[in-house]
């Protein structure tokens, strides 16, 4: 697979449904995100946001429908596609027994990145350069979250997927992560952020996709009055 195919300009969920046993977590989702977008995937708990993120990350297969990365499916693009995907999920994908540096070095090596410089730069961005050799188990939730964000972005993904990236962050860290996502989108990445924190989404996202009960209720450009719009479509749930 050539690199041009992996620098896809859009990702499109086409009629994506996903069942868990008899429960339908996603129902015929149609959603397109383009290069430079920061899409806010908004909805109440249990709406299907995390499932959609997993499907987009190729960690779950749709029961029906397909996801197209620049017009091609994950199976056609093969494992090389995963080199262009970055995911920060609910759990942080970090080994608590390893130091911050060891965690980043391990994932850098797994992605075939040339270690030291990439890791040092990521530690600097996470604000953890002075605690790089401490075990992650001794970090606060906010420090782990910042490290996890950098782990997810270590390989400069084309499609960056974030599931509640602001959990446990203080104001300063929220600003740091928000700026990081904006910079990523400005570089041409497609950024999708699942959150139910409307205050944090407001002003950050460029598009909103409102999800409830596994259905996409709205997909539109972000505008002022996000909370009122959300309440109008989703309700108070």
């Amino acid at each position, binding site marked *: 697979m050539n690199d041009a195919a992996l620098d896809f300009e859009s990702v499109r969920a086409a009629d994506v449904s996903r069942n868990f046993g008899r429960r339908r977590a996603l129902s015929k989702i149609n959603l397109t995100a383009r290069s430079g977008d920061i899409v806010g995937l908004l909805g109440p708990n249990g709406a299907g946001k995390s499932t959609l993120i997993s499907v987009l990350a190729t*960690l779950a297969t749709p029961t029906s429908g397909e996801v197209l990365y620049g017009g091609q499916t994950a199976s056609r693009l093969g494992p090389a596609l995963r080199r262009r995907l970055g995911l920060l*999920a609910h759990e942080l994908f970090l080994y608590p027994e390893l130091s911050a540096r060891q965690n980043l070095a391990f994932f850098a090596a797994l992605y075939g990145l040339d270690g030291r410089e990439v890791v040092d730069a990521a530690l600097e961005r996470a604000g953890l350069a002075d605690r790089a050799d401490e075990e992650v188990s001794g970090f606060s939730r906010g420090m782990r979250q910042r490290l996890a964000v950098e782990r997810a972005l270590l390989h400069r993904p084309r499609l960056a997927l974030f599931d509640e990236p602001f959990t446990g962050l203080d104001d300063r860290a929220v600003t740091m992560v928000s700026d990081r996502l904006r910079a990523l989108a400005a570089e041409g990445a497609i950024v999708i952020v699942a959150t139910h924190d409307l205050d944090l989404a407001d002003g950050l996202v460029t598009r909103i996709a409102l999800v409830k009960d596994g259905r996409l209720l709205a997909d539109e450009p972000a505008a002022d009055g996000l909370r009122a719009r959300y309440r109008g479509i989703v309700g108070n749930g």
Partner: protein
Amino acid sequence: MFLHTALLVLRKDFTIEVRSREILYTTLLFAFSCVLVFSIAFVKQGQPLEDAAAGILWIAIEFAGTIALGRTFERERYGETLRALLLAPASRAAIYVGKMLGILLLLAVVELVLVPLVTILFHAPLLAQPARLAALLAAGTLGFAAVGALFAAMLVRARSRDVMLPILLYPITIPVMIAGVRGTAALLQSPPDTASVTMWVGILSAFDVVFVTLSLWTFEPVMTE
């Protein structure tokens, strides 16, 4: 790249274990207790029951191995790091091989303690034929670890994983246990039945080829939700 990824995963597991020593100590203590209790039951006035040493050695390996498998993958569940591994562009089969090598290495250390212990407590001349014993242990442990790593990875997100792992693992690895026990018993005969040992090593190697091939083949599809 395949080998590089497998060794990366192995080195990561090794680093974590060296730091915590949690799995090594747990499995060693369990294996030691298991052999000690059986030696009290099966050795009367210095005379062990026939073939007891062979059976106890392999039971201790299987039970200690089950604990090691559970704990190794429990680490990947905490923080959902197994999903991070699966999301990496590396070969998923290589990730499986890395995890399996970690289990093999751990069980090799356990066996280094178990063999002299069984030799002493059961008056069994296990070390009289070290090369043949090593061949039996290596072939048997590989078969067990191959299937075990696959099942433990499959069950990592299952709520009842601690119960399900032995339920799935033990029936499938019965051929490994039978071959291991019979091969070791042949080794402990006086004089050792070397032809039988060679045959059992051959059977174990055949199991290994089947188990490793099937596991490599099925790891990717079973790990995709």
